[in-house]
């Protein structure tokens, strides 16, 4: 059984991205333990005045998120699309991780997204890939696999299940590939002898 952390990429009370992750949690319960994580209680990211402070006084909630990422074998992120990009609140969570513990380094990550329109958050997902690929985050993104859920407000039935059998099949295929990708990536990393450099950095210095 794989153990994954699934990050709900919004602070909205009503979210089809949350519903999508809840569906995955239920639907794949025989293959993986998926824990949902809400980012709404994280403080907004703000850079420290002194670069030396980056590792000190990390907010409790950020530490908690870092620990959960460390313990998980992989991370699933569900992002809505605000103004062609990922929501500020999700970006803020990623900024905390990259600025403090950098626990997403080499972590297998799968991206999914839902949107009310027909495009299914495609542009936000492309942005998110570029962001996760930045040196301070350095996540291991599963290549060339997209799960875009368009018209998400009518995609679920009353019990929160995806209605379209085609979409379910697509999600199953991608998820199984992600399980495989997690296994292979973990094995690959265990053979690496490179030492991880903990580089202190700041964006402004």
């Amino acid at each position: 059984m794989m153990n994954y952390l699934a990050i709900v990429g919004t602070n909205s009370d009503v979210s089809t991205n949350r519903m999508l992750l809840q569906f995955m949690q239920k639907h794949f319960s025989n293959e993986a333990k998926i824990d949902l994580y809400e980012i709404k209680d994280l403080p907004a990211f703000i850079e420290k005045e002194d670069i030396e402070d980056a590792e000190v006084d990390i907010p409790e909630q950020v530490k908690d998120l870092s620990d959960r990422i460390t313990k998980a074998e992989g991370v699933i992120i569900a992002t809505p699309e605000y103004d062609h990009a990922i929501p500020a609140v999700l970006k803020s969570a990623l900024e905390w991780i990259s600025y403090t513990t950098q626990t997403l380094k080499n972590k297998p990550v799968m991206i999914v997204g839902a949107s009310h329109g027909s495009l299914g958050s495609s542009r936000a997902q492309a942005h998110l890939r570029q962001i996760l690929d930045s040196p301070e985050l350095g996540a291991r993104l599963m290549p060339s696999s997209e799960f875009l859920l368009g018209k998400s407000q009518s995609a679920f039935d009353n019990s929160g299940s995806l209605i379209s059998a085609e979409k379910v099949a697509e999600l199953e295929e991608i998820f199984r590939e992600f399980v495989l990708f997690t296994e292979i990536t973990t094995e690959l990393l265990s053979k690496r002898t490179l030492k991880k450099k903990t580089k202190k950095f700041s964006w402004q210095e």
Partner: protein
Amino acid sequence: MKIIAIVGTNAKKSYNRMLLQFMKKHFESRAAIEILEIADVPMFNQSDNQTNSEIIQTFNEKIIASDGVIIATPEYNHSIPSSLKSVLEWLSFELHPLAGKPVMIIGASQGTQGSSRAQLHLRQILDAPGVEANVMPGYEFLLGSAHKAFDESGNLNQEGTIDFLEVCFLRFLRFAKISNQLNQEEEFTYNPGVYEVNAIGHSGKLPMKVSFSETRIESIDIDAKGETEGIADVVFVRIPNKIIEGQTLNVDALSGASETSNAVIDGVAKAVKLAGVNPDILKRRPKPASSQMREDEEYTCDVVVVGGGGAGLSAAAVALQQGASAIVLEKYPAVGGNTIRSGGPVNAADPEWQQQFNENPGERQTIENLLSTDESLIHPEYIDDFHALKAEFTAYQEKFGTQKAHLFDSPLLHRMQTYFGGKRTDLNGSTIYGQYDLVKVLTDNALESVHWLEDIGVEYDKSIVFAPVGALWRRGHKPVKSYGSAFIIALSQYVEENGGNIITDTPVKQLIIEDGKITGVIAAGVNGQKITVHAKAVVLASGGFGANTQMLKEYNTYWSHIDDDIKTTNSYAMTGDGISLGKSAGAALTGMGFTQMMPVADPETGELFSGLQVPPENFVIVNKKGERFVNEFSGRDVLTKAAIEQGSLFYLIADDEIKKTAANTSQEKIDRQVEAGTLFRADTIEELALKVNMDPQVLRTTIDKYNSYVDAGFDPEFHKDTFSLKVEKAPFYATPRKPAVHHTMGGIKIDTKTRVLDENGQPIAHLYAAGEVAGGIHAGNRLGGNALTDIFTFGRIAGKTAVEEMKGL
């Protein structure tokens, strides 16, 4: 030129800030650059709308007033910082100050990239719908190695860099000038005339007539027969008024009716197009002036009432009658609450009037059954009334013997039925029953309430005595006008004509408590402003919490299960606001675990009056197989429990004669529903069965048996004891039904004077509660028709007590 420059980070130390400060100084002879900081902007959250906060409003106003905007962005993780993204989200949510605004993007970073990737992202973001800025193409200014780019006094230290920045900035001034011409409204004239269009509303097409002169939209008429009453008809007045006031299509949807609001706006847009004008021009115009008012308001009065339904309006009307001043605050765009959605009959024993009507078969049996209750099962405070009722009924029996008698009723029967009907045991084994003193006040003053409403201006149809579903008895006084609108129209007119003030769109957020005393309320106004009402008394009349599924689940101790997506017959305004307000002042709650389901609600909408909603003596209830499974004349929860056991969905079978007894409908409405497939009609019972996937033979047998029971006046299977019509005359109908949340019996604890009580049973000074927000009367199950009796009786008492105690009487 006035330029706004936004520092794209909340960091205390920022090269982007230094760059903007340099530009402000360097270009001061060419443009006035004002630098805005984003550190105090809260994180965007659509569930916590802070559009009206000072900081967001400042950004909005300053950007609108500027000739152009410069955004300087650093690069965090290959993209723009979250703090900048959050600002842009606020500025594309409800406000759109960047729409059509010329924007220049610059950026500085300590690496060689100069925030190149962040700048590209920012371009895409500014291009998104809702932001729609007009970004200057080309002329990329990227400042790499920013930590080496400035001298000690904050000036750029490379001549080449300064030269290029000048090229870019001067180009931007030119770009802004030309780009702003695009924002000037193009000239147009309408082709005058009246244009007919169809907007798509909640329940089908909305035919509209829009008339134009050369320069203006002159009038908008909507034919809204198909829409849900209550809130929808406010939309048809309010939205057209706003469109005409501002000559704009930039109009906000009403809360609780966004779909219908947008249908009206789209319909007018279609008409504008027919009149030869591009509707986009009107969509870009500013909102009407009345939507932009955000001045806080303060009022002072004697009695402030929270909620403009039947209870609240009655309380206000009585306060006015007592010579006090009154303000009613209503959360929704229109008054009426759940009262306007109710069927209309008010229960009140009125023997003088009821004697005109013959008894129905089985009615005497009903009373005999009630009177044969084992006295050990009756609570002691009700025993004397039980004996007195026995004496009343014995006299009636002796008078008529075996002859056909008139309909029997008395306040005592009403009281005992309310008591027996409300007695329930929940899942934890706790038993609840109606509090005697409150039930006595209800049943003794019911008729007075009916008469008082008549004085206010309600007209009753006295030719028929009504028993709504779950009423257990025919004692309903039904107004001539359909639904509860009769009461609301009469009461709201009375309140306004007698100097009362009704303020809609104004949800009350908190009670004002000074030195432990309640001195008024604070509410939010239609445009988010603060409305303060100072008052000597506060009456909570805000209804129950039937539309708040989370709260229902939290308190529920009665139903084995409440679905997350359960429908409700209630207005969506019923979210328990008044209960929370009461709790904030220390009010005790009572009976909160007991909620009533309406067994016969629309499976899709929760509405009561879709299909054929007939009196229960004419209910023929069958399950999905076509078999009867319950005594149709049972109380609401018996019907609900039976329905849930059958899988919730069931059908009401009717014939052409039964159809004529359906409430609040018309042939036109019936035909429309048959066409839409929400009601089924056929010429034979067998064909009807096929339409709803039943075995024709099963339904045939069920109906034959039912008809024979009507003839016999006796139902050996389910013991239905009150019959009226048989199912025999084509065409036949099947109305699909499903239980939905209907009434929350529990609520704030009150005494007979409607004073709100605290946990120690002591009244909380100057705080009163009446109607569904209060508990204790209906206990575990409310009789159909008793809700209106409750709100008008206790609403009146609340108004009276509030004024008496205020005057120190």
